[in-house]
């Protein structure tokens, strides 16, 4: 039986890799891995980014799950930002938008979407209650590594 979480994010499972440009202008290669755990109750998300020589720049880990209202909770760790619990906020269909606080009076916005086997992620670190939306964003477009998953109908 497929869980509501896997029904929604089946197309995201697997390994993704592509260029990233951070909000401060640095560039590198980002890799995301989405793995279903506990029979689809949650999805473990592991991330690592590399410089042009292949040395790791950042590392991350997280768990996507659904709250009792069916909205996504994403508790995350990023080596350069620390720990946070992000909650889903309303956005267009197909888009996963998350928001949550970070230590030091900061907050994090993340928008993620999979389309045509491309995972696009945009994020922004804000500071203070009235953080400006005009701050630069970190942006990455990753392609799936390995073969595509079975079509959704077959997976269910």
């Amino acid at each position, binding site marked *: 039986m497929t869980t509501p979480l896997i029904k929604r994010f089946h197309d995201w499972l697997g390994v993704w890799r592509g260029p990233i440009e951070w909000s401060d202008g640095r560039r590198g290669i980002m890799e995301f891995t989405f793995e279903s755990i506990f029979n689809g109750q949650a999805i473990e998300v592991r991330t690592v980014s590399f410089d042009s020589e292949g040395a790791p720049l950042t590392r991350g880990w997280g768990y996507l799950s659904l709250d009792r209202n069916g909205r996504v909770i994403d*508790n995350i760790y990023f080596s350069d930002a*620390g720990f946070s*619990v992000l909650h889903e906020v309303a956005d267009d269909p197909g888009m996963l938008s998350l928001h949550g606080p970070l230590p030091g009076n900061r907050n994090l916005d993340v928008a993620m979407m999979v389309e045509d086997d491309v995972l696009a992620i945009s994020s922004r670190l804000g500071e203070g209650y009235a953080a400006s939306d005009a701050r630069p964003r970190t942006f990455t477009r990753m392609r799936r590594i390995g073969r595509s998953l079975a079509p959704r109908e077959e997976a269910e």
Partner: protein
Amino acid sequence: MTAQLAEFLPWIGVWTGVGESQAGQPCFVRNRFFPGLEGDGLGMQFEAWDPGMTTLFHGVRAVLATAPSGVMRALAYSTIHGALILELTPDDPGVMALAGESVAGNRISVTFLQEEPGRLLFTAFWRPAMHERQPNDGPRMTCGLTRAVPKRPPGV
């Protein structure tokens, strides 16, 4: 990698034992420690099964990581509690003591204690949010864990 994290690296591997759940049920426990975050973290997968191993009473997937502030926390997903971020609390050498609250407000405590080489004592409890004054010496899960080793053919 911090010295605090390095202390737990000898635990990497699979640990198993038979114990009792917080609800008093006999259970088989399997816990795996594995490298995480490209060597900067420690991954954990905890499973408590019924003795026939057909029903997973409780599963937890986690990574122990260091925040930019230097504080160590475990980022986790629990099949009972959902998203978790637990603090590594100061304790004696050979003890991993984690404590915190779930997103739902349940109070959680998890401790691994190295009794001797190849043997860990696992103990954990959780208390519902509405019972804040319930003492910590109430019912808890306890299980002795032994490092699982592959069987060696005779004469090897």
